[in-house]
């Protein structure tokens, strides 16, 4: 659109001056200007009485539903119009100067407002024009393929044959609390007894027969405890290979073994 398009195109608001919806207007100046321009009134000779009446009538219906601030703006203008009307009724000098016309200030404001409506049209044009230029990156790259509607070609038998391939869900594992508690000390004495009999003990042997996690933990702690006491050595050839427990420093091992024996007896 051309920036110099006429600002006041009365047809854009195809409404009668007497049936005005205030929503369309930015404010009282906008409404007033519409009343004047849509009736081809000479802005330098506004029939204040007629315009005031039209302005107030436009206001009447909607004033109560309007937000208070907006209503105030319209009412202020209505008051100004009534004041001008009153001033015009006062006796005037024989040769009235324009600057003494009570309407002069209002006309100046109206024309100024209209002037900026022209600017608004320029900006609208520029905005629309700018909207037709695109920078890089707006067209989506590698668009996601649209999912075409799939026609259902399966029969019930097909469906069931596929369904049959889905494995049965495993029965829920019953979690039972271990019926027996196990202590690290028990594992320590077991380990000692085994070490006394054989040259080396598989770590697995300490807990496999029981198969519970508690036994594995107790066995590990027992092995670590004895290793700390240097009663045994732990060997593993490579990660994840079997773990072997071998007797450590014999003297100390025996000494602690004796102590362990007594502990066992107390138990």
């Amino acid at each position, binding site marked *: 659109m*051309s*920036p*110099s398009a*006429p*600002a*006041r195109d009365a047809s854009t608001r195809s409404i009668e001056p007497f049936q005005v919806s205030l929503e369309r207007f*930015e*404010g*009282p*100046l*906008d409404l007033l200007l519409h009343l004047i321009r849509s009736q081809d009134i000479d802005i*330098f000779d506004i029939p204040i009485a007629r315009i005031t009446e039209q302005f107030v009538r436009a206001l009447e219906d909607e004033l109560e539903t309007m937000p208070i*601030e*907006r209503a105030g*703006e319209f009412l202020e*203008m209505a008051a100004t119009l009534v004041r001008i009307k009153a001033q015009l009724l006062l006796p005037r000098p024989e040769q009235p*100067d*324009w*600057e003494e016309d009570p309407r*002069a*200030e209002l*006309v*100046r*404001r109206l*024309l*100024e*407002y*209209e*002037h*900026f*409506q*022209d*600017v*608004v049209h*320029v*900006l*609208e*044009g*520029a*905005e*629309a*024009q*700018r*909207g*037709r*230029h*695109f*920078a*890089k*990156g*707006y*067209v*989506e790259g590698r668009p996601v393929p649209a999912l075409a509607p799939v026609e259902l070609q399966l029969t019930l038998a097909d469906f069931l044959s596929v369904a049959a391939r889905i494995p049965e869900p495993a029965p829920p594992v019953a979690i039972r609390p271990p019926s027996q508690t196990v202590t690290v000390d028990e594992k320590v004495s077991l380990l000692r007894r085994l070490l006394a009999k054989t040259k080396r003990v598989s770590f697995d042997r300490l807990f496999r027969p029981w198969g519970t996690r508690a036994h594995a933990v107790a066995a590990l702690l027992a092995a670590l405890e004895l290793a700390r006491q240097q009663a045994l050595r732990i060997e593993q050839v490579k990660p994840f290979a079997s773990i072997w427990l071998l007797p450590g420093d014999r003297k100390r091992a025996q000494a602690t073994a004796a102590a362990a024996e007594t502990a066992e007896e107390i138990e």
Partner: protein
Amino acid sequence: MKVEQIVEATLFASQTPLTADEVARADENLDAERVVEAIRTLRDAYEESERAFQIYQLGDGYQILTRPEYAPYLERFDSVPRAPHLSPAALETLAIIAYRNPIGRIEIEEVRGVSASSVLRTLLDWELVEVVGRGEGLGRPLLYGVTRMFLEHFGLKDLSDLPAPDELPVVLGELQQAMEAELESAEGLELESSDGPDPESSEDPETPAAQEEAEEEAT
């Protein structure tokens, strides 16, 4: 490596407008002057080879944008933004600020006849206007001006791309003559057009809006 190609690569890779100084950061041998010169050369080259894009000046920045005649094709893509539209209130307020720059809120409201505080807040949020100083009057009111973003949004090089006040259909100058006496008595009405945009503007490089105008004249 040719200067034009360095400038071209920099502008091509950027998603926002770059000033000549910003482009010049690409190479030690570049300065703003050489960048502007290179942009001119590139523009001519694009023009000559009928590229679908051109380098446009938006505010004090340069950006590679598609030419407007290709908009209908690009708009078929969902990801391409529709032409943005500001509300009438926002446009009205921007129009006043652009032409009366710098201006306070009260003066804006006098012209519009309605409150401007909420629309000003929105425009500040969108960085279309900014506080440019404080007035002399009571309470030292904040003064507003339009921003670089304003120029970018409307595709303007600078405010001189807007028509001078006396080029608009409603010319306040005539009114000024008609009401000279009133104006003399009432100070500070500021109907002078001296604050408004300067009608003189250099031809090159064109801004999108200015170019459209030229195209319309041609057809």
